């Protein structure tokens, strides 16, 4: 009876409050936006059906994770309202049992949260069925999808969250406890899942909100599964639910035991163990003084006093925040946690990087608009701090005394802003400490303290302080603590996710700006100026907010809007008006300047406008795609680079020839966007008949047609000068050090360019373009006429730069000289190159070596000498191996050229491979796997001089098999030949690592594959596997023939079918089916060594018996799995004692056996005592469950 009353009272009390319904509206709105803003475009792109069960589940977990703070308010309020309102002296003394009291309150909170969370399915239904979503992206309505989501995710999560938050609040007797619980759950969902993503099972178990498992299912399930498979309680997901159910019940039980229906003061006194002296009022001890003795001191007032007041209030508020558990202790713990992730994150593909300060700083910082887990927590804490400080005096009941004190509003407000700012500064100081400690612990690099201070306190802190001001502003203006928390949270989500909602312009998004970047090579480059302008602009806004805060600061008792407005009018003094006017003027001034830069100097285009432009290009000019155009055969350039002025002038001549069987009378010429191209002249009379400025394109008609075999010269002038900055920052083409531009972006291009078309199906549909696959089909014969850079050109350039820099371009450096204080470089290609090249200018250090008549040059960032020898050795080995196996290297140089950036990427343009700065920080010596990524990547890139630059595949499905797969396969050969089988095995293991990352099995066969995994990992492994069946020599012979036939660059361009044909040629009949399984079907094998035993024979040999089970299946691109009967030659291996460190011992036996599907027994005899044995031990087949291929040998009698 009492239980029911308590429940009913709590429930009806909270449900009558407006804020409860605000929470409902928040969850509803947020979930709706997640569906519409986040997932609808993915569905339109064809990734999944919008109402696929896993999509609904994903939306639900996202909604729930963001609901946590709302739930905290409900649970915390139910648990502690009596204590907060001091009603507990009435309720606790009433004859109520603890069970009824706690139980009623808890269940009421749970019921309310369940009610609020009904907003999630409601929002999903509204978004899907009532907001005009097109029927094409929807599957049939399935009630089960909603029910499983609600009962397996929403309801349990609501229970876990409410139980944990309620318990923490009840035990701490403060509503704050439940917020702490909310934050913990949030961290567990977001951060731990991310930190533990390598150990997936743990990531799933530890996440109470099941955020990690659901999100990973969305990415890992096949398209078919995404659209149809229900999320069921099974496996580790079930374990997760059970684990957290028991944790929740345990928390509730603990709360029941520990909670005491007693007054908090008495409770606290006893725990502190201090007994107060009874305050017995004996009259003579109450010897109050008399008025005569009153100090006759009066306050002095003025600015100095106000500053002193500001200092004091700020300091006291800071101490209050800092000393609380959610203050510095929590921040210190977060910093430690963040520090602990540095080593794990400072890696590229598992290879540690030298912990250079700029890279560590990149890990430690994040702008407000691109939230990363730790920074999300900081933003939430900032909101919380602001709320605590704004409400502190009112909550303790000291506000009337304090507000009657002669302290101006600006001091009251500013102190509440400065105190959390100080806390945030300490957090930033923690970050610096953590960064320096991590650098020292990892070794190999010196902390640059100055840079830390500059970046952390000069840049990162600004975002934090701007947001802190916003949080104070919201709290003061809203003047309802929990509603303000919610409003601030919404504001933050809006800032963080605005780009998903189509708000791109940074003038509209509080505190946002283009990102700064700092790397050792380029420094801040051009990134700081735009950052600064935007921040100054937002500081002006902050000043305006500050004025508003002052005007609306709550000091009086009344809080109605009209009375606050009235007061604001009274407070709007002359000086306030002046500050207000200054803020508005600054906003207009800086905003105007920014707008001038982003929208006048630069062409500001939102994502949709860019799409329209691309669509227009296709609609207007696709008709020209088969109009014959002259072929580019030679380029002659005079390039004047002015890095300090951020300016380039290029005068160029194109040598063109009509290689078509028909005369050409008109030329379609596109020029670079964002720069000037003029003085376009042909060496024959021609006139421009069309000038499309929007598309930077013109059509010229030749007075006399260009007959087949005739040639034509085209001259032009290109001028680029970096103009201010755009919405995404300043151009990085020309910077003080580390300039770099590519011909395709800047120089004129002839003919229709298919690569400018929109590829995504959804975007094509939205733009009214005819549907086509994103990549042309392998069997589309017409598409074999196109490749990315079809022309082979003779290249010649004279390029100049500042005295202290070097220009790098393709070809031999014929001569270099200085003139007028500038350095000139004359480059000429020795043999035609593919029409793709960069010009670099930087203060490079240079490392030179030779291989036969080829000069190897590495232009590296000065000081980064760690890997140079390694790179050179790999280049030499590669040149040697590839020229023997596939064909001659046609040039007399091979260069690696660095450019500034945080990445490690390489790109093999002809002769010059570009390498991002991070590549030179790789530290393979400290790779725990002993794997040398640098050597392998260099071998891979050099291999592209054959696969990609000489042999150019048609732009159709499976092109990556020819470029990337062959490049890796060739690199495997280099490692085996020049570095030994151990190195090669480590590369193979590295490539195989990717098999363990969960992903869907649904895919096209290798011959048609376009995705990264298939091109870069499965492809080379399949080729290697094949080479172990038919012989490396045979495979290389096929590649050699492919290269000889197609490296001339004539149309039609080769496809993976040509590769397949050559492989068929060298494959014996008995293995043709294997070739088919590997390349023409998406085949998966599954091998398992169930039991391995060995007995010693009388002759002293060992007889090893393996009980193995095998199966094979084919998976299509939508995920349909078909078991196929297996009858394949599979390796069986027996290995000796493990080496030290647990590595597998040397093979004693390795032979192929013909195996069928199902379980079977294999018996082999070996001469020595075996330790391990297994099936397909070298993983030559595609089997993602690799670890069960082996078994430890049990020695029998």
């Amino acid at each position, binding site marked *: 009876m009492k239980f029911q009353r308590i429940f009913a009272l709590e429930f009806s009390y909270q449900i009558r409050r407006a804020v409860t319904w605000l929470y409902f509206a928040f969850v509803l709105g947020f979930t709706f936006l997640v569906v519409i803003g986040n997932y609808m475009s993915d569905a339109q792109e064809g990734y999944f059906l919008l109402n696929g069960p896993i999509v609904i589940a994903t939306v639900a977990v996202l909604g729930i994770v963001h609901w946590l703070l709302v739930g905290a308010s409900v649970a915390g309020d139910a648990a502690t309202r009596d204590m907060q309102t001091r009603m507990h002296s009435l309720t606790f003394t009433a004859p109520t049992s603890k069970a009824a009291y706690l139980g009623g309150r808890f269940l009421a909170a749970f019921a309310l949260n369940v009610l609020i969370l009904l907003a999630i399915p409601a929002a999903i239904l509204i978004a899907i069925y009532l907001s005009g979503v097109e029927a094409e992206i929807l599957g049939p309505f399935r009630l089960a999808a909603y029910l499983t989501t609600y009962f397996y995710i929403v309801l349990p999560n609501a229970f876990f969250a409410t139980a944990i938050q309620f318990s923490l609040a009840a035990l701490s007797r403060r509503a704050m406890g439940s917020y702490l619980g909310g934050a913990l759950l949030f961290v567990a969902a977001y951060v731990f899942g991310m930190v533990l993503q390598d150990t997936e099972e743990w990531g799933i178990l530890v996440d109470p909100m099941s955020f990690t498992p659901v999100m990973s299912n969305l990415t890992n399930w096949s398209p078919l599964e995404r659209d149809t498979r229900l999320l069921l309680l099974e496996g580790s997901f079930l374990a997760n639910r059970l684990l957290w159910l028991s944790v929740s019940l345990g928390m509730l039980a603990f709360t029941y035991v520990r909670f005491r229906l007693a007054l908090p*003061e008495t409770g*606290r*006194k006893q725990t502190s163990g*201090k007994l*107060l002296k009874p*305050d017995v*009022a004996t*009259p003579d*001890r*109450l*010897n*109050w*003084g*008399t*008025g*005569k*003795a*009153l*100090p*006759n*001191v*009066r*306050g*002095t*007032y003025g600015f*100095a*006093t106000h500053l*002193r*007041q500001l200092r*004091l*209030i700020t300091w*006291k508020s800071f101490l209050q925040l800092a000393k609380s558990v959610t203050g510095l202790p929590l921040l210190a713990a977060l910093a430690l946690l963040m520090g602990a992730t540095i080593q794990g994150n400072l890696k590229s593909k598992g290879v540690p990087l030298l912990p250079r300060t700029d890279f560590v700083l990149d890990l430690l910082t994040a702008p407000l608009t691109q939230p990363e887990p730790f920074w999300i927590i900081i933003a939430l804490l900032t909101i919380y701090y602001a709320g605590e400080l704004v409400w502190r005096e009112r909550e*303790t*009941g*000291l506000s*009337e*005394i*304090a*507000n*009657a*004190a*002669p*302290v*101006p509003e600006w001091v009251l407000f500013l102190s509440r802003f400065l105190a959390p700012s100080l806390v945030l500064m300490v957090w930033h100081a923690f970050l610096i400490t953590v960064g320096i400690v991590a650098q020292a612990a990892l070794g190999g690099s010196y902390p640059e303290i100055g840079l830390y201070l500059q970046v952390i306190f000069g840049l990162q802190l600004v975002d934090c302080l701007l947001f802190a001001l916003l949080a104070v502003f919201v709290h003061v203006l809203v003047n309802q603590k929990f509603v303000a928390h919610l409003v601030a949270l919404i504001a933050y989500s809006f800032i963080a996710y605005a780009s998903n909602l189509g708000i791109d312009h940074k003038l509209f998004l509080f505190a946002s700006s283009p990102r700064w970047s700092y790397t050792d090579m380029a420094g801040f480059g051009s990134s700081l100026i735009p950052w600064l302008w935007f921040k100054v602009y937002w500081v002006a806004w902050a000043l305006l907010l500050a004025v508003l805060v002052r005007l609306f600061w709550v*000091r*009086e*008792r*009344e809080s*109605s809007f009209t*009375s606050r407005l*009235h*007061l604001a009018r*009274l407070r709007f003094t002359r000086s306030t008006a002046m500050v207000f006017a200054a803020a508005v003027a600054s906003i207009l001034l800086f905003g105007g300047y920014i707008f001038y830069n982003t929208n006048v100097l630069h062409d500001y285009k939102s994502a949709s406008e860019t799409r329209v432009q691309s669509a227009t290009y296709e609609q207007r000019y696709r008709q020209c795609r088969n109009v014959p155009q002259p072929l580019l055969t030679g380029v002659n350039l005079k390039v004047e680079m002015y890095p300090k002025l951020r300016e380039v002038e290029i005068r160029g001549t194109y040598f063109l020839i009509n290689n078509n069987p028909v005369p050409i009378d008109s030329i379609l010429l596109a020029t670079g966007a964002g720069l000037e191209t003029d003085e376009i002249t042909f060496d024959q009379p021609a006139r421009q008949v069309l000038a499309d400025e929007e598309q930077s394109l013109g059509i010229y008609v030749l007075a006399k047609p260009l007959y087949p075999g005739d040639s034509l010269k085209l001259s032009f002038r290109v001028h680029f000068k970096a103009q201010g900055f755009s919405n995404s920052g300043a151009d990085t083409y020309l910077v003080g050090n580390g300039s770099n531009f590519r011909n395709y972006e800047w120089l004129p291009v002839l003919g229709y360019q298919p690569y400018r078309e929109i590829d995504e199906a959804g975007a094509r549909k939205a733009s009214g373009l005819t549907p086509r696959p994103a990549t042309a089909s392998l069997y589309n014969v017409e598409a074999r006429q196109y490749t990315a850079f079809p022309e082979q050109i003779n290249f010649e350039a004279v390029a100049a730069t500042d005295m202290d820099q070097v220009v790098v371009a393709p070809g031999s450096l014929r001569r270099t000289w200085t003139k007028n204080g500038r350095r000139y470089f004359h480059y000429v290609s020795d043999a035609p190159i593919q029409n793709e090249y960069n010009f670099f200018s930087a203060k490079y250090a240079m490392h030179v070596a030779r291989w036969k008549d080829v000069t190897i040059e590495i232009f590296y960032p000065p000081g980064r000498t760690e890997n140079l020898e390694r790179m050179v050795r790999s280049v030499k080995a590669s040149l040697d191996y590839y020229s023997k196996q596939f064909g001659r290297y046609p040039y007399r140089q091979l260069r690696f050229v660095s450019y500034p950036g945080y990445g490690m990427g390489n790109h093999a343009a002809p002769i010059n491979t570009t390498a991002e700065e991070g590549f030179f920080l790789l530290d393979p010596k400290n790779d725990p796997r002993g794997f040398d990524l640098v050597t392998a990547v260099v071998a891979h890139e050099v291999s592209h001089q054959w696969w990609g630059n000489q042999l150019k595949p048609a732009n159709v499905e499976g092109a990556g098999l020819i470029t990337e797969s062959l490049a890796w396969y060739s690199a495997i050969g280099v490692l085996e030949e020049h570095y030994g089988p151990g190195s090669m095995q480590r590369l193979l293991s590295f490539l195989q690592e990717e098999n363990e990352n969960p992903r869907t099995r649904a895919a096209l066969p290798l011959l048609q594959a376009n995705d990264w995994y298939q091109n870069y990992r499965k492809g080379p492994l399949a080729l290697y596997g094949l080479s172990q069946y038919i012989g490396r020599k045979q495979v290389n012979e096929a590649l050699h023939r492919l290269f000889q036939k197609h490296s001339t660059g004539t149309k039609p361009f080769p496809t993976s079918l040509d590769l397949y044909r050559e492989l068929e040629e060298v494959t014996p009949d008995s293995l043709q089916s294997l070739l088919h399984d590997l390349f023409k079907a998406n085949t998966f094998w599954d091998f398992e060594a169930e039991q391995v035993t060995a007995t010693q024979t009388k002759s002293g040999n060992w007889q090893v018996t393996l009980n193995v089970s095998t199966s094979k299946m084919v998976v299509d691109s939508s995920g349909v799995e078909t078991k196929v009967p297996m009858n394949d030659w599979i390796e069986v291996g027996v290995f000796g004692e493990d080496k030290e460190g647990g590595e597998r011992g040397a093979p004693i036996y390795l032979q192929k056996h013909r195996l069928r599907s199902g379980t079977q027994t294999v018996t082999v005899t070996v001469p020595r005592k075996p330790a391990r044995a297994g099936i397909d031990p070298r993983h030559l087949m595609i089997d993602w469950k690799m670890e069960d291929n082996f078994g430890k040998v049990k020695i029998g009698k």
Partner: protein
Amino acid sequence: MENHRFGLSIGNVSKTYANGVQALNNISLDIPAGMYGLLGPNGAGKSTLMRTIATLQEPDEGQIFLGDIDVVNQKEAVRQTLGYLPQEFGVYPKSSAEELLDYFAVLKGISNRAVRRETTEALLKQTNLWDKRKQKLGGFSGGMRQRFGVAVALLGNPRLLIVDEPTAGLDPAERVRFLNLLGELGENSVVILSTHIVEDVSELCTNMAIINKGQILLEARTLEAVAALKGRIWRKLIDKNILPAIDEEHQVISAKILSGRTMVHVYSPEMPGDGFEPVEPDLEDVYFSTMAGCYGQISQQQKGEVIAL
């Protein structure tokens, strides 16, 4: 003269809350330097008036002047010379008395560290908190906390001291001491003591007003108000059950239980007979007869008499 300069004059102040309650209805008062008692039952509008004078609330209409300072529009100037002890207040439980008093001393503009130490020490001694100055305020009893509030209110030697129901949490001895302290302070400041305890006013305040339902019922010098009732208050010890009958016949202003019987005071310009005996009036009788609506009659009569003279 100086007293006059720092008097508080309240003119036609009205205040209606958003929920329709009219807390102050056209209130005008002249409060000279010295102790001024504001008497009234709970909910009479005392606290609203106190908060309005203490710059924490805006009147809908009317002006308030402290000397030359316009209280409504020059809040900052008022605050610089204001001491305010609200009816209810809390403290930071984890701060010590000394620490928090020092904090408020800075807020009240006492910047010099040495002066501040001297001031806080004097105030802590005066409020008998010196021995407990290091103790956390969270462990203070109601009386100690009240004394601490007094110390805060007295910081900076305020010329306007507003104390709202200050004696509510004090034990009898503390109350006496506190009132003495206030009395001495009242010599050169305006001290407004808002209370519903009649003795507080009768013992200390030269001037007083009685407020009920947002209106001033009586504004007078305390002694004169008592004197004016001389010969008009009568008492009788009766059985409880005949109280209704007495109430019908006479103007009963108060009835108290006295050892099982009821002592009634009635107002009557003449001898009521019926066994009533005259009684020397005190401020409580002034209060009750004002609340009963009788006092207004004599003050008008008296005024009439004055004019007739």
